[in-house]
């Protein structure tokens, strides 16, 4: 240790560096299981498998809330008025510009499927409330329109659309 200042690397220095490096590598690798265990376990992941939802019982102008991976998903059967309103607004004027068409599946334009978690701080917005015929978040007053896009309030982004597809005309699979 006292000779550490000598400029020439010696066998002893090499040994110390190798031992220190092995200890460091071993320590860091050992950390991995302790961190990895915090991730969702296998049963949680399995429980997050895709779900199927029957749309038949949802009348026009109504909505249902289903849960997928612990998240509330709003499925809204929009009226013609709601769709028209959503499509009439100039996209460029929106805080988070996106067309209504890009947020629904072609040919199923009346169906809006969004994750019902406010993009501000995670509260659940209330459907069919607010000034835009869409959603209103009671926590800090964010307002979403009938396409689930943010229109007013502190939330920075639109309600996200979860991955889903139509397996038949009246049935979707989420996930």
């Amino acid at each position: 240790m006292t000779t550490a200042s000598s400029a020439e690397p010696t066998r002893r220095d090499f040994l110390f560096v190798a031992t220190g490096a092995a200890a460091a590598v071993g320590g860091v690798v050992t950390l991995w299981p302790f961190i990895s265990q915090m991730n969702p376990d296998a049963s949680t992941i399995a429980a997050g498998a895709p779900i199927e939802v029957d749309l038949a019982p949802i009348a026009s102008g109504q909505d249902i809330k289903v849960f997928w991976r612990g998240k509330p998903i709003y499925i809204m059967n929009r009226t013609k008025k709601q769709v028209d309103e959503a499509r009439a607004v100039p996209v460029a004027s929106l805080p988070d510009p996106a067309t209504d068409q890009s947020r629904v599946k072609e040919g199923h334009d009346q169906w809006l499927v969004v994750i019902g978690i406010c993009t501000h701080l995670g509260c659940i917005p209330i459907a069919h409330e607010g000034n835009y015929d869409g959603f209103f978040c009671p926590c800090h007053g964010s307002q979403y329109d009938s396409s689930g896009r943010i229109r007013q309030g502190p939330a920075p982004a639109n309600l996200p659309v979860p991955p889903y597809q139509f397996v038949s005309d009246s049935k979707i699979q989420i996930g």
Partner: protein
Amino acid sequence: MSGPSDYQPTNPAVKWIERRLPIFGLMHSSFVAYPTPRNLNYWWTFGAILSMMLGVQIVTGVILAMHYTPEASVAFRSVESIVRDVNYGWLLRNMHASGASMFFLAVYVHMFRGLYYGSYKEPREVLWILGVIIYLLMMATGFMGYVLPWGQMSFWGATVITNLFSAVPYVGDSIVTLLWGGYSVGNPTLNRFFSLHYLLPFVIAGVVVLHVWALHVAGQNNPAGVEAKTEKDTVPFTPYATIKDGFGVSCFLLFFAWFIFYMPNYLGDADNYIPANPGVTPAHIVPEWYYLPFYAILRSIPNKLAGVTAMFAAIIVLAFLPWLDSARTRSSRYRPLAKQFFWIFVVVCVLLGYLGAQPPEGIYVIAGRILTFCYFAYFLILLPLLSRIEKPRPIPNSIADDVLAKYGSKSAVSTVIVLALAGALFAGSAQNARAEEEATPPSQKWSFAGPFGTFDRGAMQRGLKVYKEVCSACHALSYIAFRNLADPGGPGYTAAQATAFAGEYKIKDGPNDQGEMFERPGRPADYFPSPFPNEQAARAANGGALPPDLSLITKARSYERGFPKFVFDFFSTFQEQGPNYVDAILQGFEDKPPAGVTIPEGSYYNKYFPGHSIKMPKPLSDGQVTFDDGSPATVAQYAKDVTTFLMWAAEPHMEARKRLGLQVFVFLIIFAGLMYFTKKKVWADAH
């Protein structure tokens, strides 16, 4: 020795803090500059090993608590889901469970070392007593931790140990009720044990701080037992003691890792893989190996109160050691008589441990009484007497002189031998306890045996077929989900095959929007459905006997291996008692019981079943299940395949465990080698 530090930081930030809170100076004087006797041997590294083990137990314990549910109806299952579903959960649980044994092993070495070298003598009495307190706290913590998995041994261990307090005159029963929080061991007991099991390690850590503080005031004892006088007697803690401890720790880790990766159930009891059942006591209640000597003392005294008193006294007497042994010479090296009696005492403790695992009958009881007497006589008669009559040999003038004299390491070698024997005896004795007169199941060749064993996929797939077509009529497999069939290290199905397999099952789900239960096809996330809706229905359909869930059957059954086999088992990583037993049961049916054996109506004769009378009729016969791969349709083949499948079901991550074990061993061996040479280089300066 820990006077005002002469530590002079140069970094301005460190300086700034140091002026306000001299913590760096404290660390420096305690763990860097601290003078440590230069003649310490490797028995002194167990202090560092114990600190590490406390850390390991706290870290893994805190993590396990994140996944564990302390509720009587789900505790057992939550432990299983840690092992099966949580990422590296099997590793963390093995670390924690064998870690407890390692912790106790290290503390026993540490205590015997203190005993041999007289580390409890003036001025280290308080240091020693703090150690005894730590040991007591460890025992309490270990006991409560063992209760948490809520298996049969957990439950009955908790019952027996808490009932010890009922021996207290007048208030005993009230104390026991208070401990239970009910009229028997139950959910409230589990809840409070969990709370205390989480608390006590931090109390231990606190007392350890006091222990180290006291150590740093009195200074370390050393093999010569003479106090350090001059600079020549000591070396600074860092790098000398640090590197030596580091080497000791890395060797200990190798030993620890052997248990984690290759022998996780060696020190455990198969009965603890059976969920707690308040209606059935296991045939032999055996505590964990580290309590066995005290358990033997308890049982050797035929009076309840006296037995309990003796058991506690056996621990408390340690606290009085500094006054019982008043000899001026510390180290037994220079005490010819004390040294011999020390080794006799070690043997007495080991034998007591062995007896603690034996059934309390016949010769064992008498031996237990003699050894209990010897145990107390050592402290109460022998040590006081020796300190008066013994003529010690001359001690060296100083530690430096001792180093020059180069005392032989004969004692070290004999200690290693005794400890190895002791360990083997303890481990094996726990198995010995299951005294069985039955024929021992023959040892089969299993593809999954040994450190490199893997599951035979073909056997697992055939075994699954046997389970599905035969066993599943009565036996549940409720810890296995269909998705597991596609897991790596499993039967080797694809996710699509597992989904299709699940789809063949009808799963009860609900309630639906109308509030009704309904049936739907199975999904990968579903678990194998049980054949009976509840325990009562299962019993009613099976002549009163409950067909056990098969998920853990290969780990929940065992048999005696006997001496000396269990010693070799440790090195050959033999852990296949369960599979051998299951295989043997399936093939052990005989139409006609041998002469002299009567089998009650509704039961069947089985050669390998304890008591021979089994309620399960012969489940398999040749040709019953046909295999697509051309394997013979024989009972022997069915038994082997279904056992392989069930072994996987009991331990789905076995292949990952062995694979990671190999990597860890390669690393640890290299690391220990590097530490050894580094230690030699560092110490080259000191001699």
